[in-house]
């Protein structure tokens, strides 16, 4: 495994939808091996901040920059090193778990074969050739986690990762986070104290 150093710097981000302010003047930075929890009440903009950190949404004001080994990342190069699992990021219902994985891997230029052990780890191996339409919500959440990590992202953003997971799923998630912690910059948006405790710092939105 290669050594990589990723860093994200967000300086005084603000975002409003139309005339509703979501959050104002949020700054944080995070690097490989570090982790941050986004916490705050419903509607405080945790999910929006996740999207902005992942580079799929533009902040209203402020700047956000991503660097990998000192080089700035943008567009396609950013997509390839970022993983995002969120309630609104839905894989395709008409594809099987494996087909979704194969699509995501190919689109990001990663190897779909890395998914096999992940399916094992998250206990989805039996269901990988089932259409997503027939997945339960917990299985769907496990697949979302697999999809977000299968290209070994340098920046992993998990928005409410424990949603719909049973106890076993949560343990697996915590275990997985420990496995990748050293080589990943991790962001978790959550209101669950247990999940927030997995992170070394906290960004509080209100």
């Amino acid at each position, binding site marked *: 495994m290669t050594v990589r150093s990723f860093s994200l710097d967000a300086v005084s981000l603000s975002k409003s*939808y139309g005339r509703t302010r979501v959050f104002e003047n949020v700054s944080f930075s995070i690097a490989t091996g570090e982790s941050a929890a986004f916490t705050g009440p419903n509607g405080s903009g945790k999910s929006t901040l996740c*999207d902005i950190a992942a580079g799929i949404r533009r902040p209203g004001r402020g700047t956000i920059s991503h660097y990998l080994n000192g080089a700035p990342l943008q567009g396609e190069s950013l997509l390839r090193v970022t993983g995002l699992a969120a309630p609104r990021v839905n894989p395709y219902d008409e594809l099987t778990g494996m087909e979704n994985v194969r*699509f995501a891997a190919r689109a990001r230029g990663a190897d779909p074969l890395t998914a096999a052990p992940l399916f094992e780890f998250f206990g989805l191996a039996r269901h990988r050739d089932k259409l997503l339409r027939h997945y339960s919500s917990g299985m769907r959440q496990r697949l979302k986690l697999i999809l977000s990590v299968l290209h070994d992202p340098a920046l992993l953003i998990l928005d409410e990762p424990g949603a719909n997971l049973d106890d076993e799923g949560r343990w697996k998630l915590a275990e997985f986070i420990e496995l990748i912690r050293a080589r990943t910059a991790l962001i978790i948006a959550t209101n669950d104290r247990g999940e927030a405790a997995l992170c070394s710092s906290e960004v509080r939105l209100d």
Partner: protein
Amino acid sequence: MIEAILANIAKDFRIEFRRRFAVNVALSFAAITTLAVSLTAGGARLETRTHALLFWIIIFFSAMNGLSHVFTREEEEGTALFLRTTSPELAVFTAKLVFNMAVMAVIAAAVVPLYVFFLNVEIASPGRFALVACAGSAAIASSTTALGAIVARAGGRGSLFTIISFPVVLPPLWVSIKATQASIAGGGAAQSIVFLLAFSGALVAVSYMLFGHIWIEE
């Protein structure tokens, strides 16, 4: 990038094969309107100009029923964000364009034989007729794919797609009708085909430049 484009194309076609929604709707519409025209014409002999006109009106409205689907599907099923996190916008747009070209090819391939069969058209130069049908369909697909993306972001109401597409599609529609009329009568169509290709090229180029602005999440 090429791998990402291929992955997107494979994904769009696979989903369409499972659901067959876009193609089914477009084809049923094409079949029904062709039959409706044929039945209401009651075997009357139509002028070549009328034939060309009816043929392209059928193609246009069938297209309007099938082409926006590839984008509205992503928004309706909530998969748009997943697509944004996996694929560069260039790959997304290219795949959708290829998909819509294929849908238009299917529509044209269905409407041509149906129309010729039910309305007894004698075509003097079938080769040119087919070329015009292809070039015209390609022009419709390439000019409306970006509009389909806009409509999907606007909430995907079907009639909105037709309203905003009509003025954009009008020039290729006129040219295709003229050229089809000429090909039924046995005239040349080279100039029209060049026009249709130039139109497609210009609209595809502008769509690529605009797609980033249409696709990004606010």
